[in-house]
């Protein structure tokens, strides 16, 4: 079976991507600026200025101090998306004036997010047919929280797109060598998007190596064993250096000519030479390994080249980057009436939150699809199970592992658990794919039972798809643009989640719900405290004409005429401090989603 989608499915995939892009664009205006997003806006603007400098005064732009100055801001994350945001803003807002500033930044985010429905359809249609692909693509996009995150000029949805792209290209490259270099390029872009991508080799290497092992003979297997020896040798060498130099010493003494560089060069050269030998010894085995080789060669190069901040100080800045994410702070997060503040976090957290935030009509096919995929994969290992539920093969394993990887990774009790579903978004397109298969089975069963002619079977499938997707769509429309507050029917919707004691919202973007009231009711020059809204976001609301420009931000209720408090369990003190400062516990207005307080506004009584 060819892994290439049919021309029609390619066009459908393209159409889905284009539609997704325009839907996101059309619904962008109402979406508030999450705390991090305004930081990325500011970073993108700053980096765009550096690119302009590079164009006009390249020698100055390429100097170490200028690069450090330009890229030091928000160096917690690499540059690909921020560069795209900055260029897009400079072109579509500053130069052409076609869009408001926020949309200028966000357009690349829409485009990258739109890859997901396109890729999901392209992949799903090949695996299980057009019906499955279409349902899978749509089912990813009509989940309220997915739809929300797809709007943001951030990194969570982009890295989900990139992860899917890399795995899809890897899968294609296992059959068609032409896709191998593209897998490498995509991996580089994924690394340049967010640090999640560093786990991709961990996930994909076993698939490439096992596939090569299966198809090759003794000569090929000897080469594979040698490759493993080189890898193990490198790890042993690294362990030795760590033992001798310590963690700090390993980083600080790393220079161009150093034992560390020697070890890395030896690893790359050794694996590259062995890969070439494998190609000579067994082209079929090399085909299976080629995407990994491309990832190993191109990924790090693209990552390094794309981020000027690394050019002069690659080791210490990379070390800082990894250290920052390995030791990330834990933000407070409410889970069944308990404010989680530090690890260990509940093992079930990710599964439970996923189940409670998905619309129930999608939770069913997703859950069933995951169970089937896991069982079929295990059926490869346990023949008795395989006879009962079927066997999967490499593709089934690939889907199951990627559907579970991010979910299991974040489930680890010491990994930070804040951020709703955004940290395990890379799992969700794969779960949507598995849901597509379940839908296809259901639709096929329906047509079979009703003995429908092909045309009527198509109509029945469309009808079934519409019925299943409709609750998710209505939920998404209902909660937009407050996606971080969305809960599915299993939770009892937003009010049910409040009674269950789940996190009400996060990232402060829901403040958009009260900005019109503030605009209408604040006196000229009023001092306004938007709790949890940082100064950059405040500025962005003003420059995007979502908040009057005459009102002034203040840092707390003591100095404020108006206060808008974000309702979080961990911030109850903040609201009480407003009562104290304003001398009243009676709000003036608020954003109450399905009765749940989200943002509560107080006005200081006239003296």
């Amino acid at each position: 079976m060819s892994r290439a989608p049919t021309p029609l499915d390619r066009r459908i995939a393209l159409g889905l991507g284009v539609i997704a892009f325009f839907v996101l664009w059309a619904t962008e205006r109402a979406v508030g600026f999450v705390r991090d997003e305004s930081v990325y806006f500011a970073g993108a603007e700053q980096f765009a200025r550096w690119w302009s400098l590079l164009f006009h005064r390249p020698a100055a732009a390429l100097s170490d101090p200028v690069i450090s100055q330009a890229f030091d801001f928000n160096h917690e994350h690499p540059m690909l998306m921020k560069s795209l945001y900055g260029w897009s803003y400079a072109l579509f807002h500053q130069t052409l004036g076609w869009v408001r500033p926020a949309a200028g930044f966000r357009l690349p985010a829409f485009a990258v997010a739109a890859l997901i429905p396109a890729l999901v359809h392209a992949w799903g249609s090949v695996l299980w047919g057009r019906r499955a692909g279409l349902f899978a693509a749509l089912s990813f996009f009509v989940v309220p929280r997915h739809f929300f995150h797809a709007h943001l000029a951030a990194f969570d949805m982009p890295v989900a797109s990139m992860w899917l792209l890399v795995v899809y290209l890897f899968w294609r490259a296992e059959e068609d060598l032409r896709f191998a270099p593209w897998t490498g390029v995509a991996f580089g872009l994924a690394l340049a998007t967010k640090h999640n991508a560093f786990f991709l080799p961990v996930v994909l290497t076993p698939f490439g190596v096992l596939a090569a092992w299966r198809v090759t003979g003794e000569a090929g297997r000897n080469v594979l064993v040698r490759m493993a020896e080189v890898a193990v040798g490198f790890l042993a060498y690294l362990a030795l250096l760590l033992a001798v130099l310590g963690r700090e010493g390993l980083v600080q003494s790393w220079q161009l000519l150093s034992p560390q560089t020697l070890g890395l060069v030896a690893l790359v050269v050794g694996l590259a030479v062995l890969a070439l030998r494998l190609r000579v010894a067994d082209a079929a085995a090399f085909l299976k390994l080629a995407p990994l080789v491309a990832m190993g060669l191109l990924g790090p190069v693209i990552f390094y080249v794309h981020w000027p901040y690394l050019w002069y100080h690659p080791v210490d800045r990379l070390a800082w980057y990894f250290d920052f994410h390995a030791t990330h702070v834990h933000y407070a997060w409410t889970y069944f009436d308990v404010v989680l503040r530090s690890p260990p976090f509940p093992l079930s957290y990710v599964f439970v939150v996923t189940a409670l935030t998905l619309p129930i009509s999608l939770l069913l096919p997703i859950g069933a699809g995951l169970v089937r995929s896991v069982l079929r994969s295990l059926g490869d290992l346990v023949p008795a199970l395989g006879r009962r539920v079927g066997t999967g093969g490499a593709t089934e394993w690939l889907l199951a592992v990627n559907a579970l990887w991010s979910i299991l990774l974040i489930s680890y009790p010491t990994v930070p658990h804040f951020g709703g579903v955004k940290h395990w978004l890379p799992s969700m397109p794969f779960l949507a794919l598995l849901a597509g298969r379940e839908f296809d089975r259901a639709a096929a069963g329906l047509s079979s039972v009703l003995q429908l002619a092909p045309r009527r079977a198509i109509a029945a499938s469309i009808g079934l798809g519409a019925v299943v997707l409709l609750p998710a769509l209505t939920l998404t429309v209902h909660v937009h643009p407050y996606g971080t507050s969305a809960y599915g029917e299993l939770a009892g919707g937003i009010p049910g989640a409040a009674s269950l004691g789940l996190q009400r919202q996060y990232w402060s973007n829901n403040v958009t719900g009260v900005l019109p009231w503030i605009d209408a009711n604040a006196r000229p020059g009023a001092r306004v405290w938007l709790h949890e809204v940082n100064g950059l976001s405040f500025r962005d609301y003003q420059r995007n004409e979502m908040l009057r420009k005459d009102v002034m931000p203040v840092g707390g209720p003591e100095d404020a005429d108006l206060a808008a408090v974000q309702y979080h369990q961990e911030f109850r003190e903040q609201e009480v401090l407003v009562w104290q400062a304003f001398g009243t516990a009676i709000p003036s207005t608020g954003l109450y989603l399905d009765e749940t307080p989200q943002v509560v506004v107080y006005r200081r009584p006239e003296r």
Partner: protein
Amino acid sequence: MNETAHRLRTAAPALALVLVALYGLGFQLQLPRAFPSDADYHAVAEALTAARASGDVVLLHPWWTERARLFMPADLPVVGYLGDTADDLVAHPRIWVLANERLPRTPTADFRANFLPDRTPIGESRQFGPLTLTAYRNGRSRPVLLSSIDAFDRLEVSVEAPGGSPQPCHRSGSRVLCPSDASVEVTWHEVLYQPVRCLFVIPPSGGRTLAIHLPDAPAVDSLLLEAGITWEHAWLPGRSDIQLQLESPAGTLHLRVPGAHEGFFRGESPASGPGPWTLRIQTPNPQDRQVCVRLRGLGAAR
């Protein structure tokens, strides 16, 4: 029969999807019926204005339905916080429960287990859209004969060092400022999600003790002392305890707020004749042991 079973089995996935989707749609269509309108809330407010008495309080059920605050009479306290069903609401002989049990997953079992004991409904419930207003006689209420926050202006505050003479504090605006960075004021704070107007005490540094002295307390049936660390300071790991010691004509009451305890710690002394009360507070980590103190002299149970 086999044919029917086969057909059912074949159609089961589609049926399951349709049924679940219909459930989802039904849920969404039904949900708005659980939401009170502004008119419903206004009607509740009017009913409360007409029927209220001194000492009344409104309790929200579920606790988070705080949109009601927008509409309630300005001088009628409204209580709604996580855990409020277990609040004795000592100062309130009558509680108006404003309930919305049409909301999904309303915590009814918690309400029954924690709120209802010692509370008796008074009269019939009234319905305002999805809202139910019911008055309860609060069997846990007691007359509050003296409250430390009401007596704040009469408090004499000083800092005591081991072996030294007490250093007096002075009043600055609404605060009492003391040596060793200690202070006392009456403010709103949060103690385990509960908004409380209390004596907000920052204990003195250097192992010293803050002494809060009330020279002329009346006779009471009991003294209720409650202390809790405010906001997120309570959960900070590795912090020390707070020691409180209340001396009154009834004797000495010791209370220890453990380092990692969230919420109020309570102690009650027996009946006391008229005379002075002195509360002493001491902790080794004063800056993150900011403590909310409520000290009340209570009358006999109603």
